[in-house]
């Protein structure tokens, strides 16, 4: 592996060109996983049969690999005539995969809120929807900000999976250069460093947030 500055710069340029797409996919998937996970958790609490069904769905999502889920959507949907671009399929798979984990986080977050809160709110005549969204949700969000943040970091770290269905995010771009030059070592090392810096920075922000929230809830 001889040191070759122009080649390294060419790779770095490609990686940085693909960075906005990577971040956009991560951001959209975070939002998707958040909404879907919250919906799963709310449905799980409606009644017992639905609760058991949702639990099975969540466990199914959590017990199968992300790569396989991506393949599933990418190859099965077109079979039924639903042809979507790779980015959409990938974002969908990421959202669904992580919604299973976020539902568990929401569950833990809601469980820490005393039942008296929702009982009191209901007794005061609030509609069940208002109890969920105005009484429980705001308190829950603060409880779960840190673990949720960790999953958002995980979503960012999972975007390279989309390269296997031809999405030109950071890993896809790097693989493209690697396969056209037959040099894999340098592009992969550089990509690793860039991803490490990105994810470590994000994880550091989450830890800062965690510390601040812990301080503010001590008051």
């Amino acid at each position: 592996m001889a040191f070759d500055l122009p080649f390294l710069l060419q790779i770095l340029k490609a990686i940085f060109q693909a960075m906005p797409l990577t971040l956009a996919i991560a951001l959209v998937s975070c939002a998707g996983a958040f909404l879907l996970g919250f919906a799963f958790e709310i449905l799980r609490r409606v009644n017992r049969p639905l609760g058991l069904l949702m639990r099975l769905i969540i466990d199914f999502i959590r017990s199968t690999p992300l790569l396989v889920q991506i393949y599933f959507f990418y190859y099965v949907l077109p079979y039924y005539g639903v042809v979507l671009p790779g980015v959409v399929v990938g974002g969908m798979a990421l959202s669904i995969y992580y919604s299973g984990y976020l539902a568990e986080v929401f569950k833990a977050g809601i469980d820490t809120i005393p039942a008296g809160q929702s009982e009191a709110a209901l007794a005061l005549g609030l509609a069940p929807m208002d109890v969920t969204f105005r009484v429980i949700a705001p308190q829950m969000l603060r409880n779960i900000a840190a673990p949720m943040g960790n999953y958002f970091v995980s979503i960012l770290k999972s975007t390279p999976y989309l390269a296997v269905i031809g999405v030109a995010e950071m890993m896809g771009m790097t693989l493209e250069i690697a396969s056209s030059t037959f040099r894999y070592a340098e592009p992969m090392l550089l990509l690793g460093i860039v991803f490490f810096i990105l994810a470590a920075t994000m994880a550091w922000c989450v830890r800062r947030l965690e510390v601040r929230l812990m301080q503010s809830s001590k008051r």
Partner: protein
Amino acid sequence: MSFFDIFRGILEGMDVTLTVTFMGLCFAIPFGLVAGILQHFLKGASRASVTMIIEFWRSTPVLVLMFMFYYSLPTVGIYLSATLVAASTLGLHVGAYGSQSVRAALQALDRGQVEAGFALGLRRPAILWTIELPQMVRAMLPTFVNQLIQLVKGTSLVALITMSDMTHRAKEISQLTFDPPAIYSALLLAYFILLYPITIFGRWLERKVGQGSGKLMEDHGRGV
């Protein structure tokens, strides 16, 4: 090809999936224990370097890690089998996560335990081995089970470095017969059958160990 044939074909890749999992554990458990213990005991620059190593394995996407080592090691003259590269990268990635629960479990133990050990005339390693570690197992087990699940799921990536695991078998079958719904449902089912019992076991453990939900929350999100 019937669904049953496809499913049986996919199961032929089970041995590779299991081999990589077991080899991965051989990397993950020692690395997790040693890194977590070192991070707890060391101070200053040596602690920072251990943290750096853990963070490297934790914060870099595992797919990138695997490709990085698979393609870079030969250029510096190290030729390892794909199995070994896959098992070591997956194992160290998962082990780095595990190290954090080792460290947390160590920190959570009452200081009086160590002092009592010293008072009894035990040396520090003996205290760690006979007093602290046995008590930590209880706190660490749920995280370790979750990490095991992540490891098994991670083995699906070895299909991308040409190893014939279950995922790779599914891709091979998809070249013989055009039936994506059956093939990929069978593949999902295969992983689900393998992992669902462990998921249930992990959930049960979590409930048993983490009665106070504070401990539970700490674990969440660190594991994927």
